[in-house]
């Protein structure tokens, strides 16, 4: 039991370094055991240093930087111990355009082994989907669902913006 945790932690910690650097385009981060001599009860902490910046408390990170760091952890757990499908509910809400692109790349790399269902408001995330579902509230306040074509939806959105 302790063995399994220790080994999983090792592997996830290794992935985490990679995912962080990939999502941030640099920088470095680490998962740290709070009590390495007590594998039965130790907690797990995170330290993160975005590229070019100095290592500081996690609290000083920006909203988007926090999202990316959390994503790095989630993707690492999924890489080492995948579940067949994963639902992401607006995990890209805080990200700027460049970072949504990196989130998408991380998504596509895992998409061969994990089926992702992504709830999003973000165009760029939608561009990476092959299936698109629209949900809307009817006049009777009942949810309605309809299947959409990604390119048609993107076109409609572009037209609406002009």
């Amino acid at each position: 039991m302790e063995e399994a945790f220790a080994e999983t932690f090792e592997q996830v910690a290794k992935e985490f370094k990679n995912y962080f650097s990939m999502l941030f385009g640099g920088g470095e981060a680490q998962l740290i055991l709070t009590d390495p001599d007590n594998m039965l009860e130790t907690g797990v902490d995170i330290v993160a240093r975005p590229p070019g910046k100095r290592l500081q408390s996690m609290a000083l990170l920006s909203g988007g930087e926090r999202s990316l760091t959390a994503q790095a952890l989630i993707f690492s757990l999924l890489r080492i111990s995948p579940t067949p499908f994963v639902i992401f509910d607006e995990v890209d809400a805080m990200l700027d355009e460049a970072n949504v692109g990196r989130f998408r790349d991380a998504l596509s790399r895992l998409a061969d082994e994990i089926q992702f269902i992504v709830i999003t408001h973000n165009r760029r995330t939608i561009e990476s989907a092959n299936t698109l579902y629209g949900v809307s509230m009817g006049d009777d306040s009942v949810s309605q669902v309809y299947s959409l074509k990604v390119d048609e939806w993107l076109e409609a959105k572009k037209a609406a913006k002009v």
Partner: protein
Amino acid sequence: MYLKALELQGYKSFANKVEFVFDRGVTAVVGPNGSGKSNVADAIRWVLGEQSYRSLRGKKTEDMIFSGSDGRARLGMASATLILDNSDKWMPIDFSEVTISRRAYRSGENEYYLNGSRVRLKDVAELLARGGMSRQTYTVIGQGMIDRVLSLHAAERRLLFEEAA
């Protein structure tokens, strides 16, 4: 293994029966505020056996059932069904398609079904565990969850690794 389809009827804002058909790639779900997108995420968590109503943004069974609206009377039952392709035998059972269902009634009663047969919650939980799907902590990453991952205590964060182990 992959998710083939999700059917909802009476679950939260889904008073009418709806079906989502998924393929193996990335599926995006879009729509206006309050339309029901997160309710879909809740439904998946719920049908996988979630017992904490708090994590489903509710307090009790009744909150899972369509409560009515200006245009529509409330319903007496909520149901959700997950249809999974198991041809790779990710779940070590002799079915190439696995159907998991959950129904809830205003009485507070919850029923679980596996491939059409009524089973207990623990049977569903056991099957999912054997299929590596007990790791519910990161199967559904809910709205606002991504920031919470960082603000968890070190001890709470450990649980994610225990699930993965």
